[in-house]
Every structure is written in C-alpha cells, then in structure tokens.
C-alpha cells in the first residue's frame, strides 16, 4: 500500500506531465532548432518578407519614451514588445523597435509632422518557433529591463511555470522510484551516470 506522500507524488507527476505536455514539446523542438542553424528548415531569415508603410498619427499624450512608443503602436496598429533603445532627435524624430514572435517592426516617426514610416520584417513558422523560445522581454546584460507588453509577461510566466513543473516532475519521479525497493539498483546507476555526466560539463572538466 503506497504512503500518502507517494500517492500524491504520483498524482502530481501525472498531472503536471499531462498539463505541460505540449509546452514541453514546443520548447524541446524549438531548442533543437535553435541548436542547428545550418539545417535547411531553420534558414528562415533569408526567406523573411519585408514591407514598408507610411502612416499618419495624432500627437501622443504620454511624455515618457515608452509611453509615447506604446501610444504610437496603438495608433499604428502594431502589437508587441518594445525592445532596445528608443532614440529621438530635437527636430521631432522618434525611432524604436517592436518585436513579437514572427514580426519585427522598425518605427521611424516624426512627432512634429505626425507621420511614421513602419518597416516590418515577417518570418515564417520556423522563425516564430525560434523566436518564441526566448521571448521573455528581459536581457541578462540589463537586469533593470521588464516586459512592457502584458502578453510577454504572460509568456514569461508560462516559461517559469514549465520550469517549475519540470522540477516537480524530476523530484516526484525520484521520490516515486526511491520508495519502490525492487527497482533501486538500476535506477541508482542511471541517476549516478546522469549526475556524473552533467557535473563534468558544469565543472568544465572535460
């Protein structure tokens, strides 16, 4: 008769594994694609589509750079995360970039004339898959950055949730295995081999 802890470990192992099944596949496949930039299917960048449009807008109400960029995006019907630096000139020039998986927008606006040139780069499904893998709105070189699009924040939360679920799957799996006396020796060898192989990489000993 399994203990209550073992029974719950088993339930959690099954529940987390099933809920995050497709999330796991998405990140596994996109991770493999990112590691093979020479594969033909991953050559999405040369096949990107470029388009440019000239649009007019009303004077933005916000004062701060990000607020102005967001206001312009609303008016220009652009959805995504503002990334990189926002630049503006004394003559009213205001340039920024917005990104979402599949699309990169370069916006060159003239705040005085109320005109904007929007260049859009659109990539195919493989490009979307590659971009979604790291779409978090943060960068290690600038820890102060935060996602500025609510969907980026939500996606980052999904990635965190998957990471936490994987940790639960691993720990519950180890507990379930360990509480069954009949399968310990083979499992111990498998676990020890995995730890040794990884420790070698982490320590840079190879």
């Amino acid at each position, binding site marked *: 008769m399994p203990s209550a802890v073992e029974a719950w470990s088993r339930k959690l192992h099954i529940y987390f594994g099933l809920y995050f099944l497709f999330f796991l596949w998405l990140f596994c496949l996109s991770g493999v694609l990112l590691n093979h930039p020479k594969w033909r299917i991953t050559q999405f960048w040369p096949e990107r589509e470029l388009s440019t449009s000239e649009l007019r807008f009303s004077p933005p109400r916000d004062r701060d750079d990000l607020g102005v960029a967001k206001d312009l995006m609303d008016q220009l019907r652009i959805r995504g995360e503002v990334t990189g630096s926002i630049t503006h000139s004394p003559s009213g020039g205001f340039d920024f970039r917005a990104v979402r998986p599949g699309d990169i927008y370069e916006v060159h606006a003239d705040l005085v004339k109320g005109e904007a040139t929007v260049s859009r780069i659109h990539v195919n499904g493989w490009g979307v898959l590659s971009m*979604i893998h790291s779409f978090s709105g943060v960068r290690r070189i600038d820890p102060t950055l935060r996602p500025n699009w609510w969907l980026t924040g939500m996606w980052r939360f999904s990635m965190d949730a998957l990471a936490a679920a994987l*940790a639960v799957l691993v720990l519950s799996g180890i507990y379930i295995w360990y509480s069954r006396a009949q399968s310990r020796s083979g*499992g111990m060898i498998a676990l020890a081999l995995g730890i040794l192989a990884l420790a070698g990489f982490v320590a840079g000993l190879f």
Partner: protein
Amino acid sequence: MRKRIYILAGDLHRHIGLFLSPFVLLFAVSVILLNHPGIPLGTPAESQARSVQVHSIPGLEKLEGMARVQHARQILRQAGLSGEIGPIGYSSRDGRLTIPVSRPGYEAVVEVTAPTGLASIRERKTGFWDSLIYLHKMPGPHLANIRGNWLVMRVWAWSADGTAWLAIFLSVSGVYLWAVLRSERHVGVFLILAGAISLVGSLYAICG
C-alpha cells in the same frame, strides 16, 4: 504481449528519466535565471589579467571561419587556454588579433600583438550559476560557421539535443503509461485538453 510492452515502457521511462533528471533540472533552473536576471546569484565574477609570450601564426588574419579558429587554437594552447572560441577580430593598424574564448563558468579575451608575439589575457571566472546559463544557451543559433570548434562544446550540443529528444520520449512513454491506468483517465484527459487550449490560446494571442 501488452503486459510486456507496459513493463518495458515503465522500465525505460524510469531509467531514462533518472539519467536525464540532472540535465532537466539544469535547463529548468537556468530558465528561471534567464527570465529573472535581477536574481542576486551571490558569486561576483573574479577577473584577472596576465601576459605570455607566444609564437603568432603568420597569415592567420587572412583565414576565415573554422580555419581561422583552428589556427587561433594553437595560440591558445601556447597560453595554456582551452574552450569555445568566439568571433576572432583583427586590427590591421597595429597587427593585433583578438580571440575570445569561453567555457562553463569562465571567459577570456586574448589579444595577440603579431609583431612582438606578446599575448595579453583578460580572464573572468563567472561562477556556478553563470555556467548553467552558459550551457543552456550553447551552442545556440549564432556564429553557425564556427560554433562547436571545441570538442566539449560538440559533445554538449549532442547532450542538449539528446535531452530534448529523450524528454519528448519520456512524455510519450508517460502518456502511454497513464493511458493504461484507468483511475486517472478523466482528470488526465481534462489536463491534456486544458494544457493544449492554454498553449494554443497563448500562441494565438501573441503571434496571431
């Protein structure tokens, strides 16, 4: 026959899962670190600089891609360094080569002045947590023509791919093992559907 397949699937799921568990934990922990760069890791990078005399390789600046990297590795060996070599720079003005090199928890930039053969090395130990992030991001999509120039990096690339494919196998074998169980059938179907709907919904909202 069905019982044999069930036992085999269970054994494979258990043993492959146990072998893979440290790798899965590495990727899980590094995701959190990548997504939250403000987390204080408590291990400030240690830097140091030194100089060594090396025999510079004539004509290295004229080479490109992997050939340039392989010749640069000879310089690194003389300096007692190993690791994955990044994009090599060359300044024709003062005949200086810049060779970035990295491995888990360590990065260095070697600047070789060709006429004198003096190599100045700036080294940085980045610590345990950074080595997890490094492994998560390597080999990655950039510098495709020179990536994997260090044997360990090539082995790691296979390991990272293997982790992804084996994780997919574990999930498929896990679904099979669950499907055989009757006790968790309804809640399991609900969770698979809920997961699929939330993923498709998120992707549609972001990319659609």
